[in-house]
């Protein structure tokens, strides 16, 4: 019902922490405009050639589209699978809910290298290596725990009476869920979507095991690229991704009112 003035102390603290958080990126930005052939700071000359190089590099471009599609599919599935699970765990509390929820978080705790190796042994005989489906499955295993945890927390924090009110007005449980619970969970949903998308889009180690001859994700392509030539193209790609994300989010924001999702 009111505006919350933010205290100067909080502003300063948040500002400093933002500086820390963005520090490497602030260095990467000038590196991406380097005229050199190697990543070094400060660059000895300036150029935008590495941005041009990205678009000329068909491997990178292909990998980008694959990563985008992958992250999209993985995010949709994570929400589609994670949301019912979170609902069941938080609201229906079946016996052993706590143990189950721990089990569902457990894949996070295996170092991805181990998970990658372990998955390789399981997926390869199923012919899932080097396939889009295999990548989706592998990524789901790491994104789902995030989805379930974050959604569960968001769900548990909702006032129950509002859902009860919907029930009293004749809404069936499914309707209550979609019309009341879900919209009220918006900020949790946005967090989950962002997390799942990013985790998938950023995942290298698992992908290294799961990619095949014709299927490379962007992080894998970048890893391989940097592994061989530490030129500033990778920096340019990173900067481009951040700018692209910002642009997309702002456009969505303007058109669909994304920020509203954050206003309670």
């Amino acid at each position, binding site marked *: 019902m009111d505006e919350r003035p933010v205290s100067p102390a909080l502003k300063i603290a948040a500002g400093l922490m933002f500086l820390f958080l963005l520090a490497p990126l602030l260095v990467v930005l000038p590196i991406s405009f380097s005229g050199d052939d190697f990543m070094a700071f400060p660059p000895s000359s300036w150029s935008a050639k590495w941005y041009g190089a990205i678009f000329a590099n068909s491997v990178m471009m292909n990998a980008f589209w694959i990563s985008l599609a992958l992250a999209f599919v993985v995010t949709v599935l994570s929400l589609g699978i994670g949301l019912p699970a979170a609902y069941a765990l938080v609201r229906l509390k079946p016996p052993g809910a706590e143990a189950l929820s721990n089990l569902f978080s457990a894949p996070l705790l295996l170092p991805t290298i181990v998970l990658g190796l372990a998955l390789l042994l399981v997926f390869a005989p199923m012919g899932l290596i080097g396939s889009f489906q295999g990548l989706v499955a592998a990524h789901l295993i790491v994104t789902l725990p995030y989805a379930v945890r974050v959604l569960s927390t968001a769900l548990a924090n909702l006032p129950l009476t509002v859902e009860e009110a919907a029930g009293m007005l004749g809404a069936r449980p499914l309707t209550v869920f979609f019309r009341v619970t879900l*919209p009220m969970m918006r900020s949790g949903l946005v967090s989950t979507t962002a997390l799942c998308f990013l985790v998938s889009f950023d995942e290298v180690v698992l992908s290294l095991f799961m990619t095949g001859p014709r299927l490379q994700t962007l992080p894998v392509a970048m890893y391989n690229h940097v592994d061989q030539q530490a030129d500033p193209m990778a920096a340019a790609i990173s900067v481009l991704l951040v700018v692209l994300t910002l642009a997309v989010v702002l456009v969505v924001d303007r058109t669909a009112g994304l920020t509203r999702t954050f206003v309670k």
Partner: protein
Amino acid sequence: MIHAEPAEMTRLAQGQGFLSLRGLTRRYDHFTAVDDLNLDVAKGELVAFLGPSGCGKTTSLRMIAGLVPASSGHIVVDGRDLTGVAPYKRDMGLVFQSYALFPHMDIARNVAFGLEMRKVPKAEAAQRVKEAIAMVRLTGREHHRPAQLSGGQQQRVALARALVVRPSILLLDEPLSNLDAKLRDEMRTEIRDIQKRLGITAIFVTHDQMEALTICDKVVVMNHGRLEQVGTPHEIYEHPKTAFVAGFVGRINRLSGRASGGVAQVAGITVSAPGFEGDVDVMVRPHRMVLSTGPAPADAGLHQLSGTVTRATFAGDILEYEVEAAGTLLKTEASTRGGEALLAPGTPVTLSWRPQDTFVYAAS
């Protein structure tokens, strides 16, 4: 257990009411919030639940609505046991004490929600929403979010949202507590009219005795999770069965006395107390004690006590007095109708009341 046994069924169906509560009980860990509630409500009747804070009113309502499972007992509507029936299948409306508005919908969509669920045609729904919003005096605020409304405004939205669907049973949990007296008066009449017009059976939880007495057909007085008395407003007010009811519904003065042989001695006077022996509480409503400054009215039929004014308060329609008499502080009141000045503390006065306004209970 979803269905009652056939034998049980018959017994349940025998309930006289459209809505019957049978032994309704709700226990928390160490605490019985509602204890063996039995009640019959006829179709179209408006029943008020009255009782002190924490006595189990909200809990009872939530059980009826199906939001809280009963620990034991049954809720029967039109002969049908509702045990295990989901809230959304009960066709009941509930106005929450805490409003429980949908924070992500504007007012109009909050109100329209129930109609949408019932698939009421768009045009009709829009019309009914408009009417309901007008009824709660919120026209013009249709597109505000709940967070932008004051407490009373939110409460009115909650009311409109429940009323607009015209449920067969309407449960109202202190629906007017945040409204001012004037608006409350109007809303009360409005609710009453709608309820009668549509033949809705309603339960109205309130902590306002006046509200309970004026709005309803029947008052249910609860205390500590138990039913104390059920009756018409007149019965409850004029013939309270227990000291609690007498004290709770309407204001009361309490005097301690001793009974024996059908009469009780209290503060030097004798009141009739058939059937009582030993310590008794004698109670008289302040409103029924007539205060006079001159010589006491020489009516042999009246009980009388002399005392002095200790506190005097202007309360609009009435003047409230506190009078010390027979070692006790007694409340009484005088109408301001005649334009009398407030008596100063210290003024000697006499209190007189009719024998039939005297309640006697075994001392608690």
